[in-house]
Structure formats: C-alpha cells, structure tokens
C-alpha cells in the first residue's frame, strides 16, 4: 500500500540574491523563514516525503524560474522535488526539469491552456505534472455547477488564478476531472477559504475532488496542527497533505507530525 505523503511547501521570494523562503498571508506581513535549500534539506532530513517550492515572485513580476535554487537543493535533497510558480510553457517546464526538479506544478497556465498538461505529461510522464487548483466556495450561481452540501450550505467551487488574485468562473470539480483525463499526476488542491486560517482543511472540498479523480489529491490550505492532517486522511480520500507555516520555526516538526499520524492509524513512511 502506498504511504500517505507529508509535504512541506516553501514559498520563495526570489527578489533577493539567492532567494528566501517567506511566510505570510496574502503577501502582507511577510516574515522571513529561511534560505530555500537550507530549509529544504532540513525538512528532507526530518522525513518530508516530497518538497514543494512555490515561486511567489514569478507570476507578478514575470521573473524566470529558480534554476540556481533547484540545483543547490538537488545536491542534498533525495526525495521528489516539485517546483511551481510562473511556469507558462513547456519550455519553462523543461528549464525546471533540467535544473533537477522532478515535477512541475502548474495553475494559471493550465487554466489558460489546458493542453499544457498533455504536453508535460507526454514528454516527462504523468508523475511529473502536478495541477494546482486554488478553489473558493461560492454559495450563489449554482446553476450548471457541480454542487456540494456543506454545513454552511450548498456551494460550488470556483478556480482562481494568478495566485488568488483573479477568479475564472471555472468549476474546480469539473476542472479536476479534466486535469486527470489530460494526464495530471497529482492534484494540489488549495482551499482559498481556509488558506492562512489555521482552522483545518476544507474537508468537503477535498472529499468531493478525491471522489471524482483517480489520481492522488494533495490537500492544502488551513493546517494549524497535526490533528487537521489526521482529519483530512480519515474523512477524505486525500493521498497527501501539504503545509507551509506549521513546519517553519519548528512549530510542529515533520517527524513529530508523522509519528502522531502513524500512532493514529495513518500509513506513513517513518
């Protein structure tokens, strides 16, 4: 049986030499969390099953991807490395793979040009193409949408692009199915409603997507404590859980989180 994966996400600001990992809600109150490859190595040694770098400068400033950071990281991190942020074309993806990344994560570019999923998957294999979906609950305009009953009422989920700054009108549940059909290897599913709140994952969203696709769903957005990870594994079909801030500053070390999950019956790699 495959292990459930615990994935730290490092939001990288490449606007300074060498780059830095930042922590902050919506680009305000940004706090410095560390040097990308140093933090990645620390998480690797502490038992991360995969590392995700998200280039948060790329989309707004149209910067190139983080070749140097990837190269340096790949020298000391021996688990799969995913890189996202600002990847718009197969050439952008190729540059990231050539630097030593194993997977790319695409969001805005895939929404604009869904065929990019097919291209990456055909050239590098399904496992190399992560489709990131940033979904927000909508309680109105339900007609023609895939709806889900939640304790807060019936809603649908809208995809956002450009790091949450633009809304597309695209139905996230339908989009997840399309991404699967086109050859995505994972769905990295972030709840816009929960992201940054530390109140736990959007269980209804995660469950609904995991039921509609055959590929693994990585739950993201809202983790504040290990209990939230346990909840998402117990109540949904998520295969992985991603978190950023709880791992920074040693709030909850990865090894402790995994130990806790294992003691509560979740199949994890220790």
């Amino acid at each position: 049986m495959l292990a459930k994966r615990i994935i730290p996400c490092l939001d990288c600001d490449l606007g300074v030499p060498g780059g830095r990992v930042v922590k902050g809600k919506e680009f305000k109150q940004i706090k410095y969390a560390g040097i990308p490859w140093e933090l990645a190595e620390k998480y690797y040694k502490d038992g991360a099953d995969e590392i995700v770098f998200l280039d948060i400068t790329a989309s707004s400033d149209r910067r190139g991807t983080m070749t140097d950071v990837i190269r340096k990281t790949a020298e000391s991190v021996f688990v799969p490395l995913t890189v996202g942020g600002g990847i718009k074309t197969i050439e952008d993806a190729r540059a990231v793979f050539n630097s030593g990344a194993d997977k790319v994560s695409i969001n805005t570019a895939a929404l604009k040009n869904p065929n990019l999923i097919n291209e990456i998957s055909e050239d590098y294999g399904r496992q190399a193409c992560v489709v990131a979906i940033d979904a927000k609950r909508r309680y109105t305009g339900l007609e023609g949408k895939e709806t889900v009953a939640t304790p807060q009422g019936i809603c649908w989920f809208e995809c956002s692009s450009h790091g949450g700054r633009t809304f597309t009108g695209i139905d996230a549940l339908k989009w997840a199915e399309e991404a699967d059909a086109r050859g995505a290897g994972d769905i990295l599913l972030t709840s816009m409603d929960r992201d940054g709140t530390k109140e736990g994952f959007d269980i209804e969203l995660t469950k609904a997507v995991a039921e509609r696709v055959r590929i693994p769903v990585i739950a993201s957005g809202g983790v504040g404590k290990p209990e939230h990870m346990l909840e998402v594994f117990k109540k949904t079909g998520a295969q992985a859980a991603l978190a950023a801030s709880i791992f920074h500053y040693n709030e909850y070390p990865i090894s402790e989180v995994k130990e806790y999950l294992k003691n509560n019956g979740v199949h994890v790699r220790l």
Partner: protein
Amino acid sequence: MIAILDYGMGNLYSIRNAFEKTGAQVRMVQDAKGLHGADGVVVPGVGAFDAAMRKIAPLKDDIIDVVRSGTPYMGICLGMQVLFDRSEEGKEQGLGLIPGKAVKLPKSVLVPQIGWNELKIKKHISILDGISDGDFFYFVHSYYCIPKDKPVVAATVDYGADVTAVVAVDNICGLQFHPEKSGPKGLLILENFIGGVKC
C-alpha cells in the same frame, strides 16, 4: 570510479548527485569506452522500453563483457527492465542478461504506480544491508519485471500484484524504485553498491 551510462533516457542529475553524496567518484559515460575500466556500472533510465533498447543496443556486447568480467552492475527503473529478454511495452529485444520479461501493472490499480511503497524482502543480499522489511522506497513505473527463475527476486512490493522491486543475479542487480529519490534508505543502497559488494 562508478560509470553512470547516459544514453539519452532521462535526466541523470539526481542519480549523479546521490552517488556523489555517498562519496563515490562518478563519471557520466556515453559510450562503450567509458564502461570498460569502471569499478561499477549504473544504468538508469526513464521512458519507453523500445526507445531505450534502440539507444542501448549498440552497447550490448560491451555491457555483456563488463558484466562477465564481474564488475558490479546496477540497473534502475527502466534500466532494470532492459536487463530482461523483452517487455510487453515494446517489440525490441532486451539485453537478455536475466531470463524473463516486463509486464504491465494490473488493471485493478492506478497505472503508473507513483509513490512510496513498502519493501517486502524475500532474500538477503548485500545491497540490502541495513534495509528492513517495511522500509519505503519511491516508485514511478507502469511495467514490472517477472523473472523466469523466482529465486532471483530479492524484494517485492504489493501493488495489485506481487511486484518485483529488487532482483539480483551474481554481480547484477536491478531496482524498480528510484534509490536517488528514496531518502536516506535509498542512499544506503547506493552506498552498499559502491562498497564493492557483490550484489
């Protein structure tokens, strides 16, 4: 010196880094000349069986020579599958160093297998020194090897079938998973290999 065969099948950056991390001297080689004289030969590979065989076929005699001379040889992922006679994935002949074939993973599971799976050790071999039953390794593949002689299987994983994960015949070993992406346990296998151990 470990020779890693770069025959144009996938990015070898990680495998090189992983060997260097264990302290090995590594050389990337593209041709037969590079294979001879190496203390160990590693053949990685990601992609389709026929494409790999068409690229590796011109080196077949040299690979057989190197193996016969007793040099430790490691095939990883597709580099393991090409050690066999053939694959359901293609029409080309394999290297035929281990009797058997590669077959597609069963329909009952999601293909490719992508992720961390638990090793079930069938027999002890020295490249698995320090590896225990239940240790996790990182897999990405759609086909798996079925050797004719079952005793060459050193470890399997459960994925819709008893999927061969490690084979060992004399100085040849094959790994279906990616040791370079399997964390400290993966690096340990590479260390065991460069320790000059007989697989």
